[in-house]
């Protein structure tokens, strides 16, 4: 898909753009990589947490008498917390442990440290809490109307609006107006490594915390606040991360803060590792959304208006709900030019498990709904799903729903064409057994890159070039398993002409590099990559490489001149803007475009759906490491299949009914028959070597593609995901399709 110029530009590169092996691969295949729970220290204690017994209740008393077992070294309640017991990025109302009101079953009430994990868990079990049970709210639509308030500040977490044109005029001008409701579920990140922390008290009264977290700096902020220590006395070191997917922010900070509290109290190292059940019950999930869409169109498919109302379940605490739903309000129309748009997105508190960041961050829900809607509208107008999309796609120079002019290459049509060409390479062949029906479907999306107008977006990198021509690189964004160490090492190799073997990536340690913001929003390559480049460019200037191209000689001359070869690069994202009253502005500095298609086979008797083949085309700006891009696509498509078909945390009155992998089913090796990745490259001025992003867009498209394919296979439209066998059968019976 390269334009010719781009291919030639790429040819000049020596390391960037190549599928080099992971630089951190060996320790992982040898079993030597140290994940947090693998750390051990002399005299280390083990921690356990006593959690709430009701989803909404006032605590009357806490009796720890029976928990004073031999081997127990500390029991802590909220009153024992030296600092502020509450935290939260936007609303600091989430308790580390709580003594008055519990608001969901994951709330912690007491912490125990003991000589063994077994003793700690047994002691926690013996803590007796008496409660006055309070009525609970378990549906955000009820929380919206209810007089019962879960927090003093009310149940509404946020209400985002977007107003463009006048929807009444748009609907009046339409030939067809369609209204549809869609619903999405609680999804669990299901990182295979449960949350873990090891806190080690330091001689100066400070603390070092090893943790399984995505954002060491967010964790540092929480730990320092809870302990009442200056940030400088809290050193957070990221353990090798066994998966995060957006899930290891507050969920990890709370585990680190609890371990740190016990470590300071006992003066000994403390390890706290969640069981899988604790992880399911305590950690935040993907927001369930209730979406209502009204769309107007001309006979030829031209969209005239869209009115959207979305209600999200924020659960017990605010967490990232405001940011997650903000991405939804920006992107809710899908990548289509609509002259008149009115969107309202609300998030409410309930006594369910709280919800927060999860790969996709407010997009998988709206892409599922809007891309199902486009197929429904196409059917109503009797035009093809491809035709209606092409008629309305955003174009370069065109305007988005937020009034932003897209100045970069908008590659929606090439992505769609590439997917359809691959998907339809062979005509659809039905299974000879009439019990099975096959169908194909696809979905398209656009996605804002990095944080956008959510907040300040900046990050840093250090490149420390040594006298022998080797280099140490560290960055303010962290390796989450996605391959950041490798890609950043490639950039240094490219810029300074050092072989990869001579580059060492130093993992994120909050005491040795500037706060570079969180490793989220698929911002690491574009933001961190630019920061690494800035550092390299400073070094190149100091080395005067243009006049002295021999690196070794240049290093010697520079050092002899008394100059340092230690460079710190800082990158600020290009300007963005947002008017929260109108929902207008340049929401993100650039966007990525994608299309995914799928062929499914539905068992008409059981409703079971199998993904036979998936095709995914993504414009990444430029693939700095094509193999790593493909890996993101394979993983994201698979996660999207789980979202569309099997994954749902079942919460009944706040109780998680399936808190382990025997009841919650993430895709296994048999889930998808074949995945075909297609990389599209349109280099972006804002990215290092033109690179944009890939992590999140990969998992936002397969659920609607599957829903659209199920419709083609069975004639039935599933408007609630996951499309479980029961839901598919139900939809088939409703449509009168052959069962």
């Amino acid at each position, binding site marked *: 898909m390269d334009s010719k110029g781009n291919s030639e530009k790429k040819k000049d590169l020596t390391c960037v753009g190549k*599928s080099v*092996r*992971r630089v*951190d*691969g*060996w*320790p*992982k*295949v*040898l*079993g*030597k*990589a*140290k*994940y947090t*729970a*693998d750390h*051990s220290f002399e005299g280390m204690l083990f921690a356990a947490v006593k959690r709430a017994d009701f989803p909404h209740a006032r605590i009357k008393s806490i009796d720890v008498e029976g928990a004073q077992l031999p081997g127990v070294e500390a029991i802590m309640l909220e009153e024992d917390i030296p600092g502020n017991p509450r935290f939260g990025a936007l609303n600091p109302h989430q308790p580390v442990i709580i003594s008055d009101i519990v608001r969901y079953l994951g709330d912690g009430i007491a912490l125990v440290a003991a000589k063994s994990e077994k003793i700690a868990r047994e002691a926690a079990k013996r803590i007796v809490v008496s409660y006055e049970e309070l009525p609970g709210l378990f549906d955000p639509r009820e929380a919206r109307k209810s007089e019962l308030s879960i927090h003093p500040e009310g149940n509404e977490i946020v209400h985002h609006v977007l107003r463009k044109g006048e929807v009444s005029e748009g609907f009046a001008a339409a030939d067809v107006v369609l209204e549809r409701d869609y619903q999405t579920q609680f999804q669990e*990140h*299901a*990182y*295979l*490594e*449960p949350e873990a922390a090891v806190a080690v008290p330091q001689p100066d009264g400070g603390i070092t915390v090893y943790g399984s977290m995505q954002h060491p700096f967010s964790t540092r902020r929480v730990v320092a606040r809870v302990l009442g220590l200056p940030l400088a006395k809290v050193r957070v070191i990221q353990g*090798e*991360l*066994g*998966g*995060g*997917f957006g899930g290891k922010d507050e969920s990890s900070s709370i585990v680190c803060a609890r371990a740190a509290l016990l470590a300071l109290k006992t003066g000994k190292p403390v390890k706290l590792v969640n*069981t*899988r059940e604790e992880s399911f019950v305590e950690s935040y999930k993907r927001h369930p959304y209730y979406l209502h869409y009204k769309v107007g169109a001309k006979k030829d498919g031209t969209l005239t208006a869209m009115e959207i109302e979305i209600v999200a379940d924020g659960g017990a605490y605010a967490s990232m709900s405001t940011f997650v739903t903000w991405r939804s309000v920006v992107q809710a129309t899908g990548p289509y030019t609509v002259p008149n748009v009115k969107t309202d997105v609300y998030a409410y508190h309930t006594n369910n498990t709280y919800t927060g960041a999860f790969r996709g961050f407010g997009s998988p829900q709206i892409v599922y709904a809007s891309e199902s809607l486009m197929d429904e509208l196409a059917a109503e107008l009797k035009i093809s799903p491809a035709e209606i999309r092409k008629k309305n796609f955003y174009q370069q120079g065109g305007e988005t729903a937020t009034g932003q002019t897209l100045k970069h290459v908008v590659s929606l049509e090439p992505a769609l064409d590439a997917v359809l060409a691959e998907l339809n390479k062979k005509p659809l062949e039905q299974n000879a057994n009439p019990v099975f029906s096959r169908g194909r479907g696809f979905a398209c999306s656009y996605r804002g890159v990095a944080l956008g107008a959510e907040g300040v977006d900046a990050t840093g990198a250090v490149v420390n070039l040594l006298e022998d021509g080797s280099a140490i690189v560290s960055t303010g964004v962290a390796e*989450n*398993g*996605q*391959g950041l160490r490798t890609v950043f090492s490639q950039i240094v190799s490219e810029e300074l002409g050092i072989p990869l073997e001579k580059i060492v990536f130093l993992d994120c340690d909050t005491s040795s590099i500037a706060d570079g913001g969180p490793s989220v929003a698929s911002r690491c390559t574009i933001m961190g990559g630019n920061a690494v480049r800035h550092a390299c460019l400073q070094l190149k200037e100091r080395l005067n490489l243009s006049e002295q191209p021999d690196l070794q000689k240049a290093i010697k001359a520079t050092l002899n001149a008394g100059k340092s070869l230690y460079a710190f690069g800082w990158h600020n994202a290009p300007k963005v803007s947002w008017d929260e009253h109108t929902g207008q502005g340049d929401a993100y500095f650039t966007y990525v475009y994608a299309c995914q298609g799928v062929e499914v086979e539905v068992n008409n008797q059981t409703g079971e759906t199998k993904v036979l083949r998936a095709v995914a085309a993504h414009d990444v700006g430029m693939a700095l490491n094509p*193999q*790593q891009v*493909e*890996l993101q*696509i*394979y*993983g*994201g*498509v*698979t*996660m999207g299949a789980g979202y569309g078909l099997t994954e749902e945390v079942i919460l009944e009155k706040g109780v998680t009914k399936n808190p*382990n*992998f*025997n009841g919650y089913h*993430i*895709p*296994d*090796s*048999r*889930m*998808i028959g074949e*995945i075909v990745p297609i990389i599209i490259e349109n280099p972006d001025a804002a990215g290092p070597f033109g690179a944009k992003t890939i992590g999140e867009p990969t998992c936002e498209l397969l659920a609607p593609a599957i829903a659209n394919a199920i419709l083609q296979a069975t004639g039935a439209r599933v408007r609630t995901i996951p499309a479980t066998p029961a839901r598919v059968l139900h939809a088939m019976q409703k449509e009168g399709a052959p069962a």
Partner: protein
Amino acid sequence: MILNFTVNGKKVAIEAEEDTNLLEVLRDKLSLTGTKCGCSVGKCGVCMVLFNGASVQACLIKGKKMEGAEVLTIEGLGTEKEPHPLQVAFLEYGAVQCGFCTPAMLLTAKALLDRNPHPTEEEIRQALKRVLCRCTGYVPIIKAIQAVAEG
């Protein structure tokens, strides 16, 4: 009780309780932390080891069952100087991302190739279904195993 068995070719004698499982023995008593814990109910498979040559979830092997057994963990599979071909193939094909399931995937693949040196893609998928991976979508893992099987 004292349990006598072999881990990575070395004889060990471990004092353990009836309900102690092999995963706890490996991680806590032998400091072999390459074997991971993901669910404790035998459903995620990240604690897969070779137990008398077969891939088994270490969290499901309890007490006396360990007596006399031959156990292979990731620490015994190969070294950087003398790696198992699967370890090299996993790196070559990008079968490693976060790496948490990697030891289990490697051992499951070894068990498969030991009993079936030339498996079909379907047989590979069947064998891997007992280990979950949240990062790779399984594709590169399958490719790596195929590459080793094809020599």
